[in-house]
């Protein structure tokens, strides 16, 4: 069996065991509720307009990585899921639901690259979120992803981080980096600060150095900032991806309300893509806000601002050849690619572009909640993104910059599986290492 074929049937109790309990009646009513009541105009327009030309296929890294297997093409995924649900008016089997969930949750990163390839701009990513919504309402969600969503629901963060652990972690990082910057502070609960710095669950959990490094950056730039000591500090949002829109709304509201409570002018968020999508694109809309109710800027924008204002100064440049991965959610999602390049070029003397790049970049294959579907589905996303490995190899770069947590996780697995000779870093890693630190001893 080929590598690709092996990736086909995956055991995930979150899918198999839950689907086994479904009655045809429940499947039918749930599908029709989502198709008829929750979604309508865009769904009808997208599905009714698709001329099934298959031109969207070249957009999808899954399709390209599986040697152009049409089952992985965007339209192919819609055919295997929504078309059939619509055609049968919701009369589909348990196995069908498992397959649909597998496709929608693990074989599509809702990266929206296909929108840029379909002549009509049909949003297959949106269609996949409709499928996810159906699966969520049926209770058929990948186990790990559901666990993440449960964590959101009960702790308001993604990784079951307890309230005191959070504060401890911040104080630990403060301590840690004081060795280098004696006057370093991580101000907690400072009302009226200029901004609150929000991060995603994995930062306090296992990428703590990112918080410390960010604190060094804040210190050096002399900004008036704070972090909350209460739930609401986590900007991430896997419920948005699992289809649990109700929980998504709650955690987004908690995040925005925390900013309000602290009376900050805006929120600056760390290097995470999906959190940004949730803030400016999905969560805000669910809560009834056209834009973000309080300005939220991404780390890339913040670095760029600091650099342009002259607060962030370059001390040395990294000479190793490096390349930059454009995370879908902040590039195709927010157009931050030029700002990112300005910052990268300032700190790296030997920057090489991937091809294609900017808004045309291939997704990391971890986004859209796929990485949170956990170990059972790792192979799916790694084998489904061979093109990313090839794209990275072609640059000849030794350092790969990915300013997004999910991208980071996905790329790490890709680097290991395809044995790529690159070092993966966040942009803050480079900034931290090469910035001018006037307060350091």
């Amino acid at each position, binding site marked *: 069996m080929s590598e690709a074929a092996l990736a086909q049937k995956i055991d995930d109790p979150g899918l198999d065991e839950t689907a086994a309990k479904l009655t045809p009646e429940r499947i039918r009513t749930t599908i029709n509720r989502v198709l008829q009541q929750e979604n309508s105009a865009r769904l009808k*327009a*997208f599905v009714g307009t*698709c*001329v099934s030309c*298959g031109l969207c296929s070249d957009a999808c890294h899954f399709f390209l990585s599986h040697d152009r297997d049409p089952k992985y*093409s965007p*339209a192919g995924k819609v055919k295997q899921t929504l078309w059939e649900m619509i055609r049968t008016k919701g009369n589909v089997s348990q196995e069908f639901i498992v397959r649909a969930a597998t496709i929608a949750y693990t074989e599509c990163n809702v990266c929206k690259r296909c929108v840029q390839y379909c002549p009509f701009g049909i949003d297959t990513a949106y269609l996949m979120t409709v499928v996810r919504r159906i699966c969520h309402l049926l209770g058929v969600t990948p186990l790990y992803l559901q666990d993440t969503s449960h964590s959101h629901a009960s702790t308001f963060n993604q990784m079951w981080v307890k309230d005191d652990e959070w504060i401890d972690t911040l104080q630990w990082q403060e301590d840690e980096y004081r060795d280098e910057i004696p006057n370093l502070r991580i101000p907690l609960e400072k009302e009226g600060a200029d901004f609150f710095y929000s991060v995603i669950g994995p930062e306090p959990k296992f990428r703590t150095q990112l918080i410390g490094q960010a604190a060094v950056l804040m210190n050096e730039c002399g900004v008036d900032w704070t972090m909350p000591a209460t739930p609401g500090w986590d900007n991430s949002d896997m419920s948005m991806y699992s289809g649990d829109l109700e929980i998504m709304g709650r955690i987004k509201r908690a995040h925005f309300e925390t900013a309000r409570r602290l009376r900050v002018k805006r929120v600056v968020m760390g290097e995470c893509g999906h959190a940004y999508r949730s803030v400016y694109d999905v969560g805000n809309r669910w809560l009834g806000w056209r834009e973000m109710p309080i300005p939220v800027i991404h780390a890339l924008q913040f670095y760029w601002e600091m650099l342009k204002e002259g607060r962030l100064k370059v001390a040395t440049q990294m000479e190793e050849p490096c390349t930059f991965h454009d995370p879908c959610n902040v590039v195709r*999602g927010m*157009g931050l690619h030029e700002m990112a390049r300005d910052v990268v070029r300032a700190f790296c003397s030997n920057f090489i572009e991937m091809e294609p790049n900017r808004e045309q970049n291939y997704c990391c294959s971890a986004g859209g909640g796929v990485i949170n579907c956990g170990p059972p589905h790792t192979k799916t996303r790694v084998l489904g993104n061979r093109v990313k490995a090839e794209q990275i190899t072609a640059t000849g770069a030794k350092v790969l910059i990915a300013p997004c947590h999910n991208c980071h996780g996905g790329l790490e697995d890709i680097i290991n599986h395809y044995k790529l000779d690159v070092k993966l870093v966040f942009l803050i890693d480079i900034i931290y290492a090469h910035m001018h630190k006037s307060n350091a001893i």
Partner: protein
Amino acid sequence: MHSIYTFVTGPLVWVAFLVFIGGLAGKFVYLTSLAKNKDPYVFSYLHLKYALRSIIVWLIPFSTRNMRLNPVMTVVTFAFHICLIIAPIFLLAHVIMFEEAWGVSWWTLPDAVADVMTWVVLASIVFFVVRRRVVPEARYVTGPKEFVILGLVALPFLTGFLAYYQIFDYQTMIILHVLAGEAMLVAIPFTWLSHVMLYPMIRGYMGSEFGAERHVKDW
């Protein structure tokens, strides 16, 4: 002959155009009111400049990355759509019929050019059929319906061509031609041929979202 011909070129034309225009208008009203009720984002995010940007860019050959990745398909689709729209509207015989019925007329194509355009349309449809049979990603999502629709589009051109050259019985052919044209018009609102109207609608919305909200190109 007289009664069939006057029927298909008279009342039936009216019916066809009414269904075609009424159907599209109805679809437009239905979708927009649905969007107003259930998908209100659509209107909050519509942005004229970026809607037009997207619509126009995607009408320029080779302006998008995907068009450059599939040059043959790009040439064929553009040629096909241009000929499909231009040839019937500016065909001398059609214009003369309008002139005799309503006293209005407009510029016409030389018949020789219309002839070539008809060939282009028919050849493109053959290309599409073959492509849908042999290109895996197209084949996978293509069903019998797609071939029926392609047939519906091909038929007015095929019969028009045969009638023009008076191959087979002319009187039968001309009536078939008129009927085929009417069938195609009627099919537009009820099949994916409605992309004639949904193209600007979807592009307009997605173009606005990409351009105004996401600050990025949608091509």
